């Protein structure tokens, strides 16, 4: 039986309440879209395995509650992430303004070398747009991030942005990745890279690794 994945890492979705974090995620993992989704309380989880450069990557996605009050809780999860989506809503100037605050929280609480990507969601709502595309690009440039305008509704740039962040995380961990490639047949060596959650469930998953 083929192994289910080669590497495992965690991506985190953050941004103001109602910008569409859960919708982005549902579109990506289940290809579904519901205009009125149930609010996220605390943190929700999804996962998906994708292939990048011939490597099977299992990504765990942590979908956080957006309300400011919850940040005391959600900040605790930043340190467990290798990649972070910063999401705003193009029809909400305020959610865009808050990105600066979200970025400074990430700088404070996330591990060094964490990969970030900026998302302007709800790109289909052109008539309600309050944040120009170039504003998003400008902000992303300032922070040295990649930028996508997405729409969970019309399925615009969803796969692209998730794949891009996954690539960035893979690149950032190229060193360990080389190890993975050269030792691909050596399951014992790989097991050393396993983190507490990456414990084999059975022989099917006996080779996988996780960076934390």
């Amino acid at each position: 039986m083929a192994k289910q994945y080669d590497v495992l890492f965690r991506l985190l979705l953050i941004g103001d309440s109602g910008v569409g974090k859960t919708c982005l995620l549902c579109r990506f993992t289940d290809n579904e879209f519901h205009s009125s989704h149930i609010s996220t309380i605390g943190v929700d989880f999804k996962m998906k395995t994708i292939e990048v450069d011939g490597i099977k990557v299992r990504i765990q996605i942590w979908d956080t509650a957006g309300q400011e009050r919850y940040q005391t809780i959600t900040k605790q999860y930043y340190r467990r992430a290798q990649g972070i989506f910063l999401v705003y809503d193009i029809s909400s100037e305020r959610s865009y303004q808050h990105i600066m605050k979200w970025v400074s929280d990430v700088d404070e609480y996330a591990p060094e070398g964490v990969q970030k990507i900026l998302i302007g969601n709800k790109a289909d709502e052109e008539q309600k747009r309050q944040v120009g595309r170039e504003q998003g690009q400008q902000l992303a440039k300032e922070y040295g991030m990649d930028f996508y305008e997405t729409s969970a509704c019309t399925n615009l740039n969803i796969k692209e942005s998730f794949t891009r962040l996954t690539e960035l995380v893979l690149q950032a961990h190229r060193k360990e990745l080389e190890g993975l490639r050269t030792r691909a047949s050596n399951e014992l060596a790989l097991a050393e890279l396993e983190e507490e959650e990456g414990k084999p469930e059975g022989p099917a998953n006996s080779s996988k690794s996780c960076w934390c």
Partner: protein
Amino acid sequence: IFAVSPRLERNGAISAHHLTNKMTWDGSYLGSATRENAQKDSKKIQKEYEDKAGRPSKPPSPKQNVRKNLDFEPLSTTALILEDRPANLPAKPAEEAQKHRQQYEEMVVQAKKRELKEAQRRKKQLEERCRVEESIGNAVLTWNNEILPNWETMWCSRKVRDLWWQGIPPSVRGKVWSLAIGNELNITHELFDICLARAKERWRSLSTGGSELENEDAGFSAADREASLELIKLDISRTFPNLCIFQQGGPYHDMLHSILGAYTCYRPDVGYVQGMSFIAAVLILNLDTADAFIAFSNLLNKPCQMAFFRVDHGLMLTYFAAFEVFFEENLPKLFAHFKKNNLTPDIYLIDWIFTLYSKSLPLDLACRIWDVFCRDGEEFLFRTALGILKLFEDILTKMDFIHMAQFLTRLPEDLPAEELFASIATIQMQSRNKKWAQVLTALQKDSREMEKGSPALRH
């Protein structure tokens, strides 16, 4: 309730009355969070049953009316018709025709057997439903005639506790919750009206972009208030969206909006916090607006709820630590498995505690948890959590982190109520002769001392 939702979604928002009826007919009456009169519906179902009982061999299907004269016609075999070969083809040899006839008859007999079995199953189901309805009807009488008039003396008696554990009938549920939660804050209907009027004034001034109102809650900037009011609006549409009753234009939209708005005026220091909309929604389904507000405010004023809704992280950690003491005591194997996988209690408890299980459990089951929570307090929330973990212990021990996290934040929709309550009943809330409250107090003391000793250790 969830059985109804596909229909609700198709029709969009429908009237509350409509919904109540449908719930009753679906047999999800026991826990359905409605205010329908139980006795009346008990009779209705009884009649429905008697009508059917006259023709026991027929499954209750609308089609049966069409075939009244046929006593037992298996529905699934009506399409099975044995026909002779068309005249333009050579006739079957007699032997083959005989064989086909025999095969055909066997098929019909088999199908009839299946139908009969199905009909018997349905009959049993209906009888069971009648039994449940009858016991609810009796319980309603007991609650109304014996317990509620003598609340002070009776509520903690053995008999009432037993009845309570079985679930409060929906028609008296609101009343019992109100009494059990109490009104320590002495909130009157007038106070609710005042808070609501103030909230409405704010909505108006925000929508017209008006100037600053009276500045009595200084320290809470206009921007904060605006954000909070906007978040309420957003969250109302995201509260039980599949019920389609709280959304814009739905029958309970304004009530939910009113309670949450009034609360932000009543407690500007707490404000609106996500999760509150679910609690208010469940209360609205069982109480009138003003009484729901009173219950809501008093409920949130309880120490555990205050700690969570104010996001007092230190205190929340203390609650999690106390939970872990009982977790390890009751389920040592699973506890070790969680530890090994770095699955901390915050990951699932936050959702469960903030929404009092209304988001993660089926709504009728959540109401039954509320029943006992209103009686036993916060301890029961954590006992329920352990009951859930115990119920699924075997499945969970086979899972890795992400599967457990996903499972616990989205519990099975068909979670059986009786099994869950049986599981909760086996959970011991005693650890080395210490009760929940004692363990919690001791941990709080520890954490305070630690804070004094080395503030840097805590966040």
